[in-house]
């Protein structure tokens, strides 16, 4: 680092590094220089002229957002001249601004409003006719109101630089300038809405939020988005128990301000009229009828108790969406009360294979933060931008701001092609391609390898051997699909491993049936499915079993259940989830659906109903147990309690398990799908149906059956 230099800002002596922009040097000492177009991490514009300051010995006002500090510089950021200039700029800005603040979505949290309040003039000298342009809708998500736009170009830059999507540009010129889609009249993009959130004014508004509420009517609750395994922190705007908006403008959490379309707009499944709000019981004629919780729980408890008493055969399918506490409790219930290890979950990546292959190696699982700091990363057999949008964003940002080198070996074209060094290799051919890259990869200082579901079983041993052969520090990310796949595995929702990957024999148990074996078994007495939809692909499985399903919706599996118990969504409960990189984060209850209960409460109630000696478990007591028993979860909780992340580190010792790579099946989710939840999101569905197919892969989009409305909610 160069020697620090000294300058004076508003009479205060400031020490800074040469090359630091004046606006940031001032910020470091608590002097805020106003700006619209300057935005941390995005390219410099010097367009809004709000940050003009006086620098002694220069003839005119200087632009603080592009001016590097120099030794001896004497700066005045609040002199009468500067104040007059700001006022003048704001006056110019307001000439064509419609000032429709009373009906503008942004009213109350608008940077222009705040700026005028602080620096502007109380009255207008503008007596001319304003230029009016009709509002435009570019997609189901994005609306643009040109007159409100102050042309700070943040939207264009976040799309170009941040996302690499290049959907937005500038059209016309002079006072007719406006932001335009780069492809005709609609957006060809991810519909992520980053442009909307970054907009300082109400020019860009979202289809889900516009004209729904005033910002101050909402309560803001930070929780974790559970559409995919990346685990972005999201701030929900709640009004009367209903989610109105999701964003992350406070830039907290692992994702900063990033959210994808699912995170920002896919929350509406929560309010879908098809949400189950009452337990359902199958009548003698095969119909599902609403019953009270008491009746439903008593029915399940009675049948389960009967099967336990006669040593019946249970199958339990856990979820990769539910919380760690719920997963832990489910396996505990299964093993202690149902006295079986027939428990599993839908595995979307061979995490066990990786852990087994890494045995004995320390510090080899990459954290989310590693993706932002690693000097090099390799994407193997994964369409990262489609399936893991946050990880793709972090890598891209690392490349953009830190010049990290990104490599990709994939069977087809991927978004990363635009900046990474990529190699095409058909599935099964990837090791040949890796061999060709070996010397180049070995020349990197370090490497994070992110691999998809195709790398499983023996291929993992091969991959780790390849990593070892590079002679540089290598870390791995086993890409998993759903919000708590990692947690489900860590919590022992597995037939042959206990929580924390402890040997099943240590608990005095023998391995149970796996996912496929349970569903193929002709003589199951009972099948208990929590937050999963196994019958969607196996419509005739477990035909003779007593089926209990906990879910949000009447899924294919729920339709065939004997008892359906309505579950609360991730937005409606407390608990923790573990993201794809092992980051432990906290869910905070934000919304409520009448009649639904959290899976944890349902399991606890069943235990009570079955007259077990369990002390009623709560999220807190279960987590204490997890901390004690699950390796890597004994973490300081201050970070996650405050909306941050703590990184879990599972065992990398010898795993005593049966390798079953055939159980690994990727869900093939895209940017716009996340299984059942996305099916019930009207916004995600409308996005997929709208024009702009650039990033839609019809082969990957799940088939969407027409939705049935039970009319139980609202």
């Amino acid at each position, binding site marked *: 680092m160069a020697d620090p230099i000294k300058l004076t800002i508003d009479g205060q002596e400031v020490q800074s590094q040469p090359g630091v922009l004046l606006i940031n040097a001032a910020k470091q000492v608590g002097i805020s220089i106003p700006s619209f177009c300057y935005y941390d991490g995005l390219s*410099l514009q*010097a*367009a*809004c*002229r709000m940050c*003009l300051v006086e620098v002694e010995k220069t*003839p*005119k*006002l200087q632009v603080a957002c*592009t001016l590097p500090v120099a030794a001896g510089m004497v700066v005045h950021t609040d002199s009468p001249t500067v104040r007059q*200039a700001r006022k*003048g*700029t704001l*006056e*110019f*800005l307001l*000439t*064509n601004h419609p*000032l429709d603040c009373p009906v503008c979505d942004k009213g109350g949290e608008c940077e222009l409003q705040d700026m005028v309040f602080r620096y502007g003039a109380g009255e207008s*000298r*503008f*007596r*001319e*006719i*304003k*230029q*009016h342009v009709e509002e435009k809708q570019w997609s189901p998500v994005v609306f643009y109101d040109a007159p409100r736009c*102050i*042309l700070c170009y943040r939207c264009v830059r976040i799309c170009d630089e941040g996302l690499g999507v290049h959907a937005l*540009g*500038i059209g*016309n*010129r*002079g*006072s*007719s*300038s406006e932001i335009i889609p780069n492809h005709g009249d609609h957006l060809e993009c991810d519909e992520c809405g980053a442009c909307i959130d970054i907009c300082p004014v109400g020019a860009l508004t979202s289809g889900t939020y516009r004209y729904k509420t005033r910002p101050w009517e909402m309560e803001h609750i930070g929780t974790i988005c559970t559409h995919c395994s990346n685990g972005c922190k999201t701030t929900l705007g709640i009004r009367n128990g209903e989610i109105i908006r999701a964003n992350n403008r406070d830039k907290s959490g692992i994702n900063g301000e990033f959210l994808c379309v699912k995170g920002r707009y896919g929350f509406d499944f929560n309010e879908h009229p098809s949400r189950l709000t009452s337990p359902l019981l199958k009548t003698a004629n095969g119909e599902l009828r609403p019953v009270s919780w008491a009746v439903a729980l008593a029915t399940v408890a009675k049948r389960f108790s009967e099967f336990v008493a006669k040593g019946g055969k249970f199958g339990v399918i856990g979820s990769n969406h539910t919380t760690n506490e719920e997963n832990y409790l489910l396996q505990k219930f299964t093993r202690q009360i149902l006295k079986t290890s027939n428990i599993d979950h839908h595995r979307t990546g061979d995490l066990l294979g990786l852990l087994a292959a890494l045995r004995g190696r320390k510090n080899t699982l990459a954290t989310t933060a590693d993706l932002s700091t690693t000097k090099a990363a390799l994407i193997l057999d994964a369409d990262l931008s489609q399936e893991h949008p946050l990880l793709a964003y972090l890598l891209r940002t690392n490349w953009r701001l830190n010049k990290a080198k990104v490599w990709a070996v994939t069977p087809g074209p991927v978004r990363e092609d635009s900046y990474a060094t990529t190699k095409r290799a058909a599935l099964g051919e990837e090791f040949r391609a890796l061999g060709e890259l070996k010397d180049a990869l070995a020349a990197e200082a370090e490497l994070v390898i992110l691999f998809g579901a195709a790398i499983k079983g023996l291929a993992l041993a091969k991959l780790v051997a390849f990593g070892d052969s590079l002679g540089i520090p290598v870390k791995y990310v086993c890409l998993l699909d759903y919000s708590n796949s990692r947690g489900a595995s860590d919590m022992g929702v597995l037939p042959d491993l206990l929580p924390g990957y402890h040997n099943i024999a240590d608990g005095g148990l023998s391995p149970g049936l796996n996912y496929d074996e349970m569903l193929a078994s002709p003589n199951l007495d009972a099948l208990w499915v929590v937050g999963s939809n196994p019958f969607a692909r196996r419509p005739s499985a477990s035909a003779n079993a007593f089926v209990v399903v906990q879910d949000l919706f009447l899924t294919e599996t729920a339709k065939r259940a004997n008892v359906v118990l309505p579950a609360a969504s991730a937005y409606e409960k407390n608990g923790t989830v573990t993201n794809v990189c092992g980051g432990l984060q906290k869910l905070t209850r934000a919304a409520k659906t009448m009649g639904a209960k959290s899976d944890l409460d349902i399991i606890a109630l069943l235990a009570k109903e079955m007259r077990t000696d369990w002390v009623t478990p709560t999220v807190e007591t279960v987590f204490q147990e997890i901390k004690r028993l699950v390796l890597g979860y004994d973490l300081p909780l201050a970070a996650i309690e405050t909306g941050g992340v703590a990184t879990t580190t599972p065992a990398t010792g010898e795993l005593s398990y049966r390798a079953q790579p055939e159980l690994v099946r990727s869900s093939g989710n895209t940017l716009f799908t996340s299984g059942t939840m996305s099916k019930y999101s009207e916004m995600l569905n409308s996005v997929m149906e709208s024009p702009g197919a650039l990033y839609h892969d019809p082969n990957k989009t799940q088939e969407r059956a027409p939705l049935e409305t039970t009319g139980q909610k609202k």
Partner: protein
Amino acid sequence: MATKYNDPSPLEVRVISQRFQTPNSASIDTYLATEGYDGLKKAIAMTPDAIIDTLKASNLRGRGGAGFPTGMKWSFVPRTTGKPTYIICNSDESEPGTCKDRLLMEKDPHQLIEGMVIAGWTIKSKKGYIFIRGEYRYLIDIVDKALAEAYKKGFLGKNILGSGWDFDLYTHTGAGAYECGEESALLESLEGKRGIPRLKPPFPAVVGAFQCPTILNNTETFASIPVIFRKGAEWYANLGVPKSGGTRLTCVSGHVNKPGVYELPLGFPMMKLINEVCGGMRGGKKLKAVIPGGSSAPVLKAEECIDLTLDFDALAKAKTMAGSGGLVILDEDTDIVSVALRTIKFYAHESCGWCIPCREGTTWLKKIIGRLEDGGGVPSDIDLIGELAANMLGRTFCPLGDAAAMPIGAFVAKFRDEFEGKLKQTRATKKEPDLVVV
């Protein structure tokens, strides 16, 4: 389409316009018959430093408007980066009142080409572009024809004059934006992007076309170079005044008897230009004002012009500028408010919209002055015009905002009585000013 060219004046010093009256002046045969490409032959035997020293000694200053010393500009180009370098000619002549570059391209394109080849040789560039204003469509064919002739005679292409050095030159059209006359906006447009100016520094000399070192000069600047090498730096410098060497094409429009383009040495007296070169005021009217350097130059009242000479420093001292060399002469009957309106309409139309003060300021000023002109003015308008111009001045991203603010500020300051006079008029076409926001 051939431009009808005004009759020359005996007071002119015809150096770069020497061939303008010759039939077939654009052809390479005419050019070669009149010492064409002799400057290049001399320059190609010189070292880059010697070429730059010659330019410095000639006191040639950029003819695009800013008047920056050309030799110094070339000396800023790094020659050891290993990157390609480019020679770009700014032929995006769009300043109202300026019409000289079109004549240079139409009447004597080889002079321009020769100047660019000398620039290319200086920094061993391989490629150059002549960026021609989109509206000058007809010039593309003329310049392209000249380029083909130069290739044929070996002044362009491979191994120029046996030097072992290759140089290619192309024409490129602008797309109709005044803003692209600003050098960095021109580069953006050349690269196929939206024509908005770049952040400076770095300047084009260091990071120019395609992010590479670039020599970028005005058409007239390049066209002035061959003669400097042909006749010597001292000879050229002596044509002008100290610090401003050579001659300049002066474009005179407005209320004079003989408007036109005249080549005059730097430092030529303004009144002599009006009364002798241009044959005096039209209809014997009295001079009211002069806009001395294209429409962005602050206006001069008649009395300010009396002892004024036409060179960069003298005009700067008079708080205006020599700019692009376009003089607009206004007689006593001129309505200054309507001149101001015409001027601001142009800048409001041409503002690229990148920064707030220029984008909104030009449009607002246009609306106020339009309303005033239309008889809908209110007394506070006049101070407001001056204040808005001051709020733009020096605060915009590029000089376009200044180019709009400077003349408007000067019109109001120097002819306030005419603006006030408008308040007494009744509104010609419409009712009271719209106070209601629509």
